[in-house]
């Protein structure tokens, strides 16, 4: 069920980000969402794209260090309290969120949230049981 996320290791050096964005652009891959985790020396650039395999291939051929990680994607109503509800459910079941980021698509009334947890299957089960809609790979492609 989980959604594929691309993680790219970015050294804190001039021009590194350009290499990444250019190779994704040249591969014709569409970015749905992104987030950056950074330290003083390096960052990890995380992307949700419409074609993760193609993006990975393009990035690797331009010398980037890339991995595909499975993350939990959910779709929630774009309204106050929506995210709080999800976080509360996870807290109740002691599921720790390593990181998360959200994005809104143009036409829908929903927001999408990407969650990184230790056990995807467990988190997905609990979220489904609590009525939260999960995102699948095809949802990302069709966004």
């Amino acid at each position, binding site marked *: 069920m989980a959604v594929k996320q691309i*993680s790219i290791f970015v050294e804190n050096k001039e021009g590194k980000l350009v290499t990444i964005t250019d190779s994704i652009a040249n591969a014709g891959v569409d970015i749905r969402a992104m987030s950056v985790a950074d330290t003083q020396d390096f960052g990890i650039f995380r992307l949700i794209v419409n074609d993760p395999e193609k993006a990975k291939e393009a990035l690797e051929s331009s010398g*980037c*260090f890339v991995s595909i990680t499975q993350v939990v994607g959910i779709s929630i109503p774009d309204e106050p309290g929506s995210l709080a509800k999800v976080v509360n459910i996870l807290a109740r079941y002691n599921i720790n969120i390593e990181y998360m980021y959200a994005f809104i698509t143009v036409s829908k009334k929903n927001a999408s949230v990407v969650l990184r947890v230790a056990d995807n299957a467990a988190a997905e089960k609990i979220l489904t049981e609590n009525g939260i809609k999960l995102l699948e790979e095809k949802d990302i492609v069709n966004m």
Partner: protein
Amino acid sequence: MNNKYYQPEYETMPVEEIKKIQDEKLVRQVKYVYDNVKYYRDLMDKKGVKPEDIKGTEDLHKLPFLKKDDLREAYPYGLLATDIKNCVRIHSTSGTTGKRVVAFYTQHDVDMWEECCARAIVAAGGGTDDVCQVCYGYGLFTGGAGLHGGSHKVGCLTLPMSSGNTDRQIQFMMDLNSTILCCTPSYAAYLGESLKEKGYKPEDNKLRAGIFGAEPWTEEMRRDIEKALGIKAYDIYGLTEISGPGVAFECEEQKGMHINEDHFIAEIIDPETGEPLPIGSKGELVFTSLDKEGFPMLRYRTRDICILSREKCSCGRTFLRMTKPLGRSDDMMIIRGVNVFPSQIETVLLNQGYAPNYQIILDRVNNSDTFDINIEMNPDDFPDSPKAITGKEKKLQDAMKAMLGINPKIHLVAPKSIERSEGKAVRLIDKRKRYGITI
């Protein structure tokens, strides 16, 4: 009143007499080693050389070399020439792949070494009126113990400070009126800056001389240190394998270091062929100890590149002089006074499950070495979290510190991101070269 020489009978001895002493002592030392050190006896037998073939210094070239690898292989007792019960001390230095080199000293060896250091202190103007502040590290490193012992022999008031704790160094220096400072040149420069920051002028301290060694430094650094501390700065050379600091020392001429030839024979060889080269040639320095009991070394290859000179010195000493090491014939680096071999770094990487794709970056900031290592991550191991990556860096850093004795800054980088030359990662970028530092 301070004397000009510590042992004038040796230090100013006519060259022919030095040769005579060396001839006699060499014959004795070779026989002693052959009789007591199986490891070296085997080397001699393999080369077909018997002790009776060595009749004087002109036969020295017949003897096999000892290399750092031999010391590692023979670790710990293989090159010990006497019973442990006759030994009173060990010192130790880093080996090429982490196994350390251990040198043994009898009381005779310690006395001889300390006398060499005493000669260096007296050559720097030291005497019984002096207060000698020793801020080389004390411990397995020979720096602290050597100058400490030498200072005792001269009769200086000795301040056994060891390294670090700059505030305390400065407090004792000012309150106890230190006149001679012994440390690495980079620490001397750092002390100079720290004194300035505290508002002291060079004339506020009582220092007259500094004896600096254990790491490469330049003439420019010498002038800077002399100006900052208001002293005359003297170079000193040595290595644990041979005894420690004081194998050679500088006089007031500041034109190369006099080698204590009554205890050590110096040769220059071609590092490629091993052939001895005439005095005045640039090549690898090789030492033979003449009267050591615990850990005698015959034809030990230092890997230091330098030039020897027999030119007469105005100080009156007749001992041969050596230039500062001008480079190395191996890949050893000296970082913050510590010997570091790339093979040690590779050993750590292997133990930690990394490929040997790394790059060492050395630089000098505020007269102190910076030491960074970029290490490529394994292609199949990308932890999707900065915390996991910094955790890996910390683990590598701790392992490096345990192996090298100094702390590098570790940077994990992407696989294949380090610049390659003929398929191999470029291992070393030494930016210190722009300051004229070559080792």
